[in-house]
């Protein structure tokens, strides 16, 4: 059983979490055309490599971001939403 470090609860068995996939920026619904919107809805990067993903610790319903390698399954880091916003602002 893999361990995942929840920013709120520390390292826990990964069976306590759910993953909602790679973080994807939602285009502006007012301006995005149908192609851009269906891209956002369905056409995933499905990256084989390091991705930022949504994870939720289900017993505490806590959402956070994990930086994970989708081939090795290594979790590089986890981020609270504040931390994630900060690194996003830094242009990562």
């Amino acid at each position, binding site marked *: *059983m893999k361990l995942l470090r929840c920013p709120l609860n520390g390292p826990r068995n990964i069976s306590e979490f759910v993953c909602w996939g790679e973080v994807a920026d939602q285009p502006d619904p007012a301006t995005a055309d149908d192609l851009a*919107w*269906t891209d956002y809805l369905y056409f995933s990067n499905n990256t084989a490599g390091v991705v930022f993903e*949504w994870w939720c610790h*289900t017993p505490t*319903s806590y959402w956070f971001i994990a930086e994970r390698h989708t081939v090795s399954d290594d979790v590089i880091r986890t981020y609270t*939403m504040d931390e994630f916003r900060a690194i996003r602002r830094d242009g990562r």
Partner: protein
Amino acid sequence: MSGVNRIPGGLLVDAARPVRFTFEGRAYDGLAGDTIASALAANDVRVLSRSFKYHRPRGIHSMAAWDANALVQLPGEPNVPAERTPIVPGLAVRGQNYRGSLAHDRDAWLGRFARFMPVGFYYRAFFKPHGAWQRFWEPRVRALAGLGAVALDAPHGHFDKVHNFCDVAVIGGGRAGLSAALAAAGAGDQVLLVDHNPVLGGALNYGRAAVERAATHAERDRLVGAVGGVRRITVMTGAVANGYFADHWLAIIQGSRLHRVRAGRVVLATGAIEQPAVFRGNDIPGVMLGSAAQRLIRLYGVRPGRTAVVVAGTDDGYGVALDLLDAGATVSAIVELRPEPSRDPRAVAAAGRNIRIVNDASIIAAEAVDGHLAAIAIRRQGDNTRHGEAIVCDLAAVSVGRLPAYQLALQAGGRLDYDDARAHFSIAGLPPGVTLAGWTAGEDIGANHPWPIYPHPDGKAFVDFDEDLQIDDIENAVAEGYREIELVKRFSTVGMGPSQGRHSALTAARLVAKETGRRVGDVGVTTARPPVVGEKLGVLAGRGFDPERKTAMHHRHLEAGAQMMTAGAWWRPAYYGVLAHRADAIAREVRAVRTAVGMIDVSTLGGLEIRGPDAAEFMNRMYTFTYTKQAVNRLRYVLMVNESGAIIDDGVACRFGDDHFYVTTTTTGSDRVYQTMLWWNAKWRLDVDIANATAAFAGVNIAGPRARDVLAPLVEGCGVDAGAFPYLGAFEARIAGIPARFLRVGFVGELGFEVHVPASQGEALWDALMDTGRGAGLVPFGVEAQRVLRLEKGHIIVGQDTDAMTTPEEADMLWAIAAKKPFFIGKRALVIRDKHLSRRKLVGFAVAGAPPLQESNLVLKGGNAVGFVTSVAWSPTLNRTIGLAYAAREDAAPDRSLVIRLDDGRDVRATVVKLPFYDPDAARQAL
């Protein structure tokens, strides 16, 4: 007497405690501590089982349960490893995979036809004429397939699971493992030391690394004694470390218990597995690994044979010969397979004890009489005779080399390379925190014989005992074009049996390397996957844990005779009455609601609290309606669609304050809706707090024209008349002294109040209402009646009348969409769906009479399915069969005719009816 072959000195057996058991219906005496195999060996019983394909007699081979040769049948338990399973008084053991008797198997003819069953023969035949495989051959193949038999009435038994944690897990309690455990404990770590044998010591207990055993035993006693004196070391014996999983998560099985162990780091000191030589008859009972003979002697006090030949491809063979002499056996010869005489001290000692050593020899074949070894034919250098020299023996102990037990290391991510000089595999590439020790690490393991493979023109030189695969089979698989080891495995089935290649992988790799002109290291072995050894399904299952949820009123439903049904994890009353009168019960409940008053437990509906300055904005984004202008103490329908525009949930939102909404969800949707809300707000960061209060509330819906009669006497602080408490009102007040939320809803189409109270008060609420309601004719109703009632009103049930694609437009629910809102989840997708309208629409329909219509019957048009019935019921109120169905879009108008196909193939005509069926002016719910 515990057997003619019993000798003193068995480490694990207690000579003072005989144990009587049966094998093949005959009684035998063994000793406490014996395994089935050792006890039978002590009694000179050599044949334990029959092989998978050719039904050849098989017996002890490794005494470590590494192969399928000694799998036996216990009552209710197939494929039991006789070499590891202890005897207990009265144990009834049988051989496996024979017809008739173990000694005279009527299927043994299969072995004589082996030449007509080459590798992959089943791909070449049995399929003509058309269908012959399924009709004729497969049943015959299946009849011969399998090993042991399951008993269909076998009890589940008791299994359970525990969690353990340690700083260091050391797997293997031999010299290396004991040393590693002591070192780790010395450094302050909590250590878990795991060994699959009954006692610690590993090969120190039975091997003979030197002429004299005294030094070996002294080392064992020192190490085992030291480990026993360290409190930081926890010892688990008789425990198999069967799987390595991510982040040092180990599956360790001890008896009927699965230990899930989280280790800080892992030391693999799993030792090495002795490998067989490949020659004609190498599977005959009496031919066994040298270590098997030593285990019998030293662990169980059993002389493995009277007259022995030792086949030596490594110096360990000489230790085996010395052990056999000490055990009272005659050693007729040591057949040295290497060109040079051994200079090992054990070889010198063996020569000194007048054992004949035949150097630079090869093996021609082992010969059996009555299913047991009678002689071994060898060829000395320069001997050109066809049959060589036959040496009479009843035991051939084979020592040609070992392989590091790499299974756990490979599961952990390690990879194998072939050490050409020492002719065995070495392990590299382990993840951080996993290390090897001792033989597993290639330390002190010596060189293997590089090619202990002796083909015979008549075959029966087995590479894989489990699958009865011979040298030719591997060579022919390559000749057929299957040059990759994984393809050879798949084509020939080598390594796919119970021993999972422990004894066949090396030989197979060597043969494939030779046939393809590659290095053994380039050929490799097939992927090692968990588990290391077969593990009982019961151990994996444990006691099982399936959480279920009961409402606060659960027992009241049972007392009232409810038939309960599941809804997600919840139990809900389906109807009150007996199965035989199901329809009547449902109709009675429906009529009670329509004519008097009924009460249903709605505690299972989700309840979410949305609080904060942005609560209304949050609601506006999550749901399709508008909530910013919703008045306090009013409730509104909520409809949730997903980002693709499909309906996923509904309920009502009560506004109890400017910054406070209380939202209900469907029974099965609450957790998902809650999670979804939190996810979106993790992105939006609106100033709201979202709490899942589902479990905090119990609730009932009191519905019917006399609902007020039930409630009025009990409600404090709020009127229940239409003026004070209008339709779609929502108030907080008290009922029977209990603080409660009141919601005026109309799901079933009558005057109705939902009352939500703290879950702890649910039963009290139920009792109080039942009490006061008796005079008004209050009856409890269940989910089935509610389904009929809401169908009469034309209300959908999300998940029943909608599927994963249903849009509000298809469901005719555009009234629930606030199209002018700038955003709600799914809005943008609905714009796209509107451009590509589907061909279906959800409609109400009615049929004449009472045909056996079922939900999911198809709506046909021009012979094609254009939709299906989602809900159908006999309406006791309307006295007709009504339903909802997807129909072709052009037929979605009142009075259009639909064709519905019944289960039995007949078609019935239905008429589209404008919804709702009942009370179209919605006057009753607004009373």
